């Protein structure tokens, strides 16, 4: 288990490093330099050189990368934006919790629903429940979340007054309003993965239930609930892997969903940074995304290793 953790964590670290290097080199190699963006088109060469010297942009790219990395690793500091002069940690800290809450709610709800629905569909194979689950699985992967969001806003927020059409009500003021305001966005965010995970749970559980040792378990007189629990433990392995990836993917889709619902989350920060050509901020936000994604995958691997100890021993 510890060996597996170290190996996986090492691989995760390697991808974080590679991604950050690619991002860093790309943002530093584009034609518009921060000096030109901040000082404007008519800046003199001397003024631009001075700007570069002040911000350490005249050094070799690998030295800049090293310093940036050092800031992140040693001080947890994403740096200061060249264009706005704002500390990026503060900007991320202000917007990340909003996005994180949305994603966690969406993730939790879709996991609970897809496990329940997928299990029911597998146990009651070819029943009404099964057909319903399969229909939801097909519809869920076909309808893009941000379009579903628009349709749901029209139906539930404009035509009827059931949910607010956008924004997030502060939790401190009224928790009921808060829940109402995150219901639609998190549903739209989660529905695709709910469909994928329902389908996976169903097919994976059906596979396991058909195996010989399941027949043995039933034949030896175990109660149906106990048999199902054993089956689920093995059937969940692929589901957990995909669920771990879903968490990171949901983070990406939250960008779009937040835009539909006018939510002031990480997406607003990223899109504003893109409009202002604030590349350092773009880079910082993408690093945050990568970090979340890598951590989610690592957690999924570890959970799988505890579900099925065979995965923990080196192949």
């Amino acid at each position, binding site marked *: 288990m510890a060996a597996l953790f170290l190996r996986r964590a090492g691989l995760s670290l390697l991808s974080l490093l590679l991604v950050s290097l690619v991002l860093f080199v*790309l943002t530093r190699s584009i034609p518009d330099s921060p000096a030109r963006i901040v000082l404007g088109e008519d800046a003199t060469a001397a003024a631009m050189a001075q700007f570069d010297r002040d911000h350490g942009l005249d050094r070799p790219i690998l030295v800049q990368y090293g310093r940036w990395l050092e800031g992140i690793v040693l001080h947890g500091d994403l740096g200061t934006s060249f264009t706005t002069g704002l500390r990026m940690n503060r900007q991320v800290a202000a917007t990340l919790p909003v996005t994180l809450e949305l994603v966690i709610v969406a993730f939790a709800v879709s996991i609970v629903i897809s496990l329940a629905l997928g299990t029911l569909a597998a146990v009651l194979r070819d029943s009404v429940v099964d057909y319903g689950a399969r229909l939801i699985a097909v519809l869920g992967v076909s309808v893009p979340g941000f379009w579903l969001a628009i349709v749901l806003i029209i139906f539930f927020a404009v035509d009827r007054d059931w949910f607010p059409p956008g924004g997030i009500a502060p939790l401190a003021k009224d928790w009921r309003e808060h829940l109402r305001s995150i219901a639609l966005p998190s549903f739209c965010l989660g529905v695709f993965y709910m469909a994928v995970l329902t389908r996976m749970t169903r097919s994976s559980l059906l596979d396991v239930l058909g195996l010989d040792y399941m027949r043995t378990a039933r034949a030896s007189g175990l109660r149906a609930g106990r048999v199902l629990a054993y089956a689920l433990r093995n059937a969940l392995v692929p589901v957990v892997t995909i669920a771990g990836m879903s968490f990171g*993917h949901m983070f990406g889709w939250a*960008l*779009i969903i937040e835009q539909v619902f006018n939510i002031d989350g990480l997406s607003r920060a990223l899109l504003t940074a893109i409009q202002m050509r604030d590349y350092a901020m773009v880079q910082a936000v993408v690093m945050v995304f990568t970090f979340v994604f890598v951590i989610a995958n690592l957690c999924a691997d570890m959970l799988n290793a505890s579900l099925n100890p065979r995965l923990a021993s080196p192949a």
Partner: protein
Amino acid sequence: MSRFARRLANNFGGGSGLLGAVIVLTLLVLAVGAPWIAPRDPLQVDIVNQMQEPGPGFWFGTDQSGRDVLSRVIWGARASISVAAVAVVIGMAGGVSLGLIAGFFRGGWIEQITMRFLEAIAAIPILIWAIALVGIFGVGDGHWGPFTLGSELKLSMLLGVLYIPTLARVTYTTAAVESQAYYVLARRLQGTSSPRIILSDVLPNCLSPVIVQSTLLLAIGIVIEASVSFVGLGVQPPTPSWGNMLADARNYLLSGDWWLSVFPGAAISLSVVGFNLLGDGLRDRLDPRHATAALAT
């Protein structure tokens, strides 16, 4: 079903695969024939007929500038399909060659470097990469020395690069197995050169999973193009795309003008269903061993 219909359906892995093929074919016809099929000019501003509800004159209604929504949806197919298709072609060119090389020279440093690098790129979801890259390379037309790249072509090139790891992984898995097969050994003993064996023996045997994966990537490409254009980073107005039509419609949500958002969105969903059904059908037909669910983006 008549015998002909059944044989036709079997070519696409069954009835749902055939349905997917029909949807995809319709889309292709709309995309290619947009200038002749669309009833009106998608850019024609018509102040008299602003915000018309769907009716006999305008089947899908008109938008805030009186432009015909039906014509814009038809032209939007062109933007979506071309971005997705160019991206898949680039991804196939890069992914299949890298996958073939890494799979054929298995166990060497070429394989290690290629696969580790591709895995790191695949460590971030495609959507986030796409938005980050568009953010870095700028929105709108790109200028590379004397060349100008339209926003659509730029988006498809970025997306194409992001498809490389997925297609490389698919090719690599098959190529690694095929390269160990006896017929490859036989070709080697005949003295055939490695590039020749790769192209004429290994490549043809790797194509089925690549075709299946590419069909699914087309669906993903359509959704990504729509999403990126929706947040204003993809296809730029006035060129109609389903994504930027939805972005426009976002401003008229609260006034109840539903047709502005329902039709482009339905077009996206229908295309995604079409490519997914076709992809699943082709998988049943070409590659039944690998019947796993694909996770989009």
